[in-house]
């Protein structure tokens, strides 16, 4: 019998989806399955899936402008107990440093602009890089804490 550790290792999982919001659930479903091997508190699992949702929604909406011919690419892997998700679109990219702070008083009641903030709140690490040939890649990382660890980042 192999150790539980070995059972969990899947190697990198890649998927790509047509740019439809309905497909976000497909990706969440697969990520949820990947996380099954880890004994995560339900809350933590929920925040990870929400961060993934936000990243995919941005890739579909802002990146690919909901053009269903364009694809959203998701790579997932767990390395050293850290979940790493890369979400890539086929859009024009953007400058993440230019994104407004949703907590600034003048933005507090805006109807948008909270997606990246939520990702940063729920994940340990969020980074952006432009992709060769256009599009943006966002990398989300979260350490999947083992037994005995109850502390949570995020709300």
């Amino acid at each position, binding site marked *: 019998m192999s150790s539980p550790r070995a059972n969990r290792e899947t190697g990198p999982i890649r998927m790509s989806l047509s740019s439809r919001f309905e497909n976000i659930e497909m990706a969440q479903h697969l990520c949820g399955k990947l996380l099954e091997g880890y004994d995560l508190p339900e809350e933590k699992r929920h925040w990870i899936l*929400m961060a993934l*949702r936000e990243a995919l929604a941005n890739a579909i909406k802002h990146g690919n402008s909901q053009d269903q011919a364009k694809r959203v690419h998701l790579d997932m892997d767990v390395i050293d107990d850290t979940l790493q998700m890369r979400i890539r679109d086929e859009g024009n990219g953007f400058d993440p440093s230019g994104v407004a702070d949703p907590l600034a008083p003048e933005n*507090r*009641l805006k109807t948008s602009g*909270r997606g990246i903030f939520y990702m940063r709140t729920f994940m340990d690490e969020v980074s952006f890089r432009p992709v060769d040939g256009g599009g943006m890649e966002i990398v989300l990382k979260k350490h999947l804490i083992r037994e005995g660890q109850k502390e949570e980042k995020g709300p």
Partner: protein
Amino acid sequence: MKTSVREAKGGVQILDLKGKITIGSGDVQLRETINKLVEEGKKNILINMADVTTIDSSGIGELVGCYTSVTNKGGKLKLLHLPPKISDVLTVTQLITVFDVYESEGEAVASFAA
């Protein structure tokens, strides 16, 4: 998402939401329901969030948009039965203080008369 509207004491409109308020599913529907109430001259709206299973930043944005449009018409929009995760999501973006949030429907309805 499913929506249904009931009227409580004092003409307070209770909007029961059920399901997801997420991008492309429920977010626009929420706005349209609220806009319709506002157009009908209903000014006191209580959104019952008890059966909302998921919300994302788009859903939160719509909630804020509804708040603003009701307030701009001189009305009040309040929230009832916030599930803990939605409360968390409103808290981190410092929106929880914007909304009046109630745990009891009776108290919430009465508050509009105050």
